[in-house]
Every structure is written in structure tokens, then in C-alpha cells.
């Protein structure tokens, strides 16, 4: 690794306001990582409300930056650059982060580095485990689900991904349909632990098709149908029904992810990487059933399984600072015209999977 770089990272693309200081030496170090969540603000709406998220970011970002610097025991002037998520995400929050970073960069004369949020996730295994390129990354969160071969700090090749919802969304929706608290990931997992995964047979969409594309929207529809049938028959749900549905749902998601990962791994292994590895990132990677299944698939394929600690799997700014460091190391910096982008696919070479029109592809 080249010279020592210390970067401030800023992240505000969804419902977490975050700032962090990361230093790259021989062994990269997270000097601080502050994440201020907004779960309570969005609680009654059953999902993240973009305008509410944007309002919160605009008034918390500078506090978050101050706290990250304080915890690191460093002043702004001791940074070598400022990295900020410039997309993709909810544009109001991304804009606030980008403008705050521009203000800080102008005031200090430090280089500004715009980072793709997905690149932040995808490069995290290099921060935590010094993973060599190329590795296979499954990015699976509330907003995203894709397989990427990570070949460099700005070189990503997408093998496949969801053609509709992300699994995290499906967990949240399941929790809402069953009257469990948000966020849905932990509450569905806890209920599933008590349930019988064999009682309800939910669909495994796209398993019958080749490749590693996925679909999760049909799963929640199937769950809604089963729920409504039970409510119609018995006037409500027993705890037992709820646990069984969660268990069945979680098993379906797990099996789809495991099988698609097996196929993506096979494609990745054709590159004959010297140190084959499967890495995961995103909040859904915190699910223990999914994590265990992915670990087993990696073992079967002879690849190492790398799952960064949970706090670095979910949205955070340390990953943005780190991705900024990797970009600076290969000479990629931005200027004051840096744009905030609601949509920004990591892989511009592959055909768009989601979205289109004048706003461009979502993934």
C-alpha cells in the first residue's frame, strides 16, 4: 500500500446519517464511525419517507462530522481528503451530504472524492479483511440485491441481481403484513426461530431459470394470500401461524440466495482467482440463516467466506471513507461540480436490470 491517507467519510443516502474517519497505512484503521439512525422518525409510515429522511440529514450531518472528528481525536485540517456518497440513493439525503462535503472541502482546501454507495459496500471486505481482487460480492440490503465481481476500486462486473424488490424490502413488508415491528429483518428472524419452515410452501421465483437473476416481489404476494386466508378462516393469526409464516418466508429467501450464489460462484471461479472468496454486505447479510447458507455454499465451492462485522455490513461512513481512500490511491478525485445521483449503476458495461427512461438505470 502506498502513502498513509486519512479520510473523512460522509454517508446520507438512505435513513442513516453517518460520518467516519479511516486511516490507510499498512493495516487500515477505522479511527471513528458515527451512525445516527432515523428508525423512530419513519416508524409509523411503514418505510422510509424520502422527505422526512432528507430533513433529518440536512440538520444532522455537520454534528455527525464533528462527532466523528472528536472521537478520532483529529481536526479537519489533519485529513487528507473528504469522501462522500454521491449516489445512488434518496436524492434529498445524497444532496445534503454532497453539499456539506463540498462546504468542508472548500473551507479546508482538501480534495473531494465522490463515492458510489454500492462501491462502499463492495470494497468493505478490503478494509476489514484485506481481501485481494478479484472477489465475488453479494450485496443484499433493503434497497439492493446484486452479485458483483470486484476487480478494482472502480472496476465492478455485475453477474446478476434482483429484477424487482430487494430482500430487505421483502423482510420489512413481511413484518408489516404480520404486525411485527420495523425494521423487519431482526423481527422476522426472531419469529422464524420459533416457527416451522415446512408448514407454508412459498415460491422460489426464477430458480428454474439459468443465471443469477432473482425476484422477490412474488414472495410477499404469496405471503399476503396465506395471511388473508388464515385471517378469513379464524379471524386473525395465532403466534404460531406468524412464526410459521416467518420461518417459511425466511427459508424461501435463503434458498433462492443460496442457489443463485452457487451459480454466481461458478461463473466467478471461471476466472481462476488465486484466492477465491465470496464476500457479503448489506443489512440482509446479518440474517443468521442466510449467512449460514452462504457460508456453506462458499465452502462447497472452495471459496473463502467473508462477512464483515454487522456495523460495517449496514450503512455506515467508514466504508465511504475507505472507498474514497482506494479512489485517491489511483488518482480519482472530484471537483466542486460533483453531482448527486439518485441512480448510479456500478457496472456501466452490463445491460440495465431495473428502471430506465430519462433518469437512467437503477441497477
Amino acid at each position, binding site marked *: 500500500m502506498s502513502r498513509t491517507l486519512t479520510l473523512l467519510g460522509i454517508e446520507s443516502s438512505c435513513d442513516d446519517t453517518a460520518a467516519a474517519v479511516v486511516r490507510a497505512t499498512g493495516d487500515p484503521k477505522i479511527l471513528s464511525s458515527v451512525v445516527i439512525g432515523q428508525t423512530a422518525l419513519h416508524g409509523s409510515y411503514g418505510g422510509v419517507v424520502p422527505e*422526512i429522511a432528507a430533513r433529518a440529514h440536512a440538520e444532522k450531518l455537520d454534528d455527525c462530522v464533528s462527532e466523528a472528528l472528536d472521537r478520532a481525536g483529529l481536526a479537519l485540517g489533519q485529513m487528507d481528503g473528504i469522501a462522500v456518497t454521491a449516489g445512488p440513493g434518496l436524492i*434529498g439525503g445524497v444532496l445534503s451530504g454532497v453539499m456539506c462535503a463540498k*462546504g*468542508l472541502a472548500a*473551507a479546508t482546501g482538501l480534495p473531494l472524492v465522490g463515492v458510489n454507495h454500492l462501491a462502499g459496500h463492495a470494497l468493505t471486505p478490503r478494509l476489514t479483511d484485506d481481501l485481494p481482487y478479484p472477489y465475488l460480492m453479494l450485496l443484499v440490503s433493503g434497497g439492493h440485491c446484486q452479485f458483483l465481481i470486484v476487480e478494482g476500486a472502480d472496476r465492478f462486473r455485475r453477474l446478476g441481481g434482483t429484477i424487482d424488490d430487494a430482500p430487505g424490502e421483502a423482510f420489512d413488508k413481511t413484518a408489516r403484513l404480520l404486525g411485527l415491528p420495523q425494521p423487519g429483518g431482526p423481527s422476522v428472524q426472531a419469529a422464524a426461530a420459533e416457527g416451522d419452515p415446512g408448514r407454508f410452501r412459498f415460491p422460489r421465483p426464477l430458480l428454474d431459470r439459468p443465471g443469477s437473476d432473482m425476484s422477490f416481489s412474488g414472495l410477499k404476494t404469496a405471503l399476503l394470500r396465506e395471511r388473508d386466508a388464515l385471517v378469513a378462516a379464524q379471524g*386473525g*393469526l395465532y403466534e404460531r401461524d406468524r412464526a410459521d409464516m416467518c420461518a417459511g418466508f425466511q427459508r424461501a429467501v435463503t434458498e433462492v440466495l443460496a442457489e443463485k450464489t452457487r451459480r454466481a460462484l461458478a461463473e466467478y471461479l471461471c476466472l481462476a482467482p488465486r484466492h477465491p472468496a465470496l464476500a457479503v454486505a448489506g443489512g440482509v447479510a446479518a440474517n443468521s440463516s442466510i449467512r449460514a447458507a452462504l457460508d456453506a455454499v462458499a465452502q462447497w465451492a472452495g471459496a473463502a467466506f467473508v462477512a464483515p462485522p454487522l456495523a460495517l455490513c449496514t450503512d455506515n461512513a467508514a466504508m465511504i471513507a475507505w472507498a474514497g481512500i482506494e479512489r485517491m490511491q489511483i488518482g480519482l478525485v472530484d471537483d466542486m461540480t460533483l*453531482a448527486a445521483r439518485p441512480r448510479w449503476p456500478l457496472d456501466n458495461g452490463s445491460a440495465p436490470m431495473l428502471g430506465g427512461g430519462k433518469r437512467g438505470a437503477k441497477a
Partner: protein
Amino acid sequence: MDAPLLAFDTSAAHCAAVVVREGRVVQQAFEPMARGQAEALMPLLERLLQAERLAWRDLGAIGVGIGPGNFTGIRISVSAARGLALGLGVPAIGLSTFELMLDGAGLPSASDLVSVAAPRDRAYVQRFAHGRPVDGPELIDLGTPTEFTLPPETRVVGYEAQAIARATGATGDEAEIDDLPARLAAVLTRKAAEGAPAKRPAPLYVRPADAAPSRDAPPEILA
């Protein structure tokens, strides 16, 4: 000698900015812009500073338009101002559209109601006494401004001022902000002279966020 001041505003379809030295406007810009303010703002500010041979660290305070106005536009400027203030260690001072509107309306009276256009035939209004806000801002429906009582001898200033005045028995001065950089300079100069504000600038939204509670009713859980 007072340090130079910089103010900017993107609360509607424009980028406006001004540099003030010793109480005088020395550089100003007003660029109509329907989109792209986030990309254009900082280069615009740097051009104005360079024209004056000023560096960012020469500034004594930053003024920023906090609205009411376009939510996204307000956040663009407020976020930049807060980043600059943190980085420079100087105060950022919020300048409301009400203050900017009132600034051009001659001497403030004992009771002014300042009105600013809001979407869908409504207006943002705020009461001022001797040039200082007395209550928080409100959103009123221009169809029913009568639901609103004002102290006697109130002057309504701004958007649809005469209609609001007629309905409430006040006098009305129709006005619009046609010289934004000059007003940013004037209001910032006045507020900066009062010292650093206790709070950092925050967007003045007035309207709550559009958000509907979840439509998914949870099922009854049977014991």
C-alpha cells in the same frame, strides 16, 4: 475592520450570491436555474470570491437563504453553508424569505405581516413587529384568509398582499423580491452585526413533509 461576508440562496429556480465588504456589495450574481444548483453553486461562489481576490478563510460569516421555498433548493444551500461554517469556524446565519421580502419594503412598521408564495394557491405568512418576527410562520389558504386575525394597523407585505389585507382589514403592499443579492447583503449585514446566532441555520419548511401513515393494517393476533 469587519471581515468580508458571503451570502447565497437557492430557495427557488435560481442561484443567487453576494459578497459584502465593509457594508458594501462588491460582487453579486443571480443566475436563473431550474435544475443543477448543487453542481453550480460552489463554482459560482468561488468565482465571486476570486474576483475580489478573497480566499474562503478571509470570510467573517456566511449568510444562507433558509426559505420558505423549494425544499430541495433550501437544503442545497443550508447544507453547503453548514459545511462551510464547520470547516471555516465562522458562523452561518440563516436568512428567511420573509426577512428578505420585508427588507425591500421601506421601514418596518409596528406590525407587518409578510407573505411569500406557496404552492397550490396558498401563502406562507409570518408576523413581524418593528422588523423582528413575533410568531412562527404559517401556511394560509388564499381562498380563506379571513380565518386569520391581525392586530389593528397591520401592513401586509409581499405575495397577494392586497387580497390578504382586504380580507383581514389591514393595508396591503404587493411586493416581490426582485433584487435578491442586494437583499441578501442587507439582511446578512444587519444580522451579522448582532453577533453570531445561537442556532445554526435550518431550513424553514413551514409545510410538513408529505407522508401518509402505512396502509397495511396489521392482522389481529389471537391468543
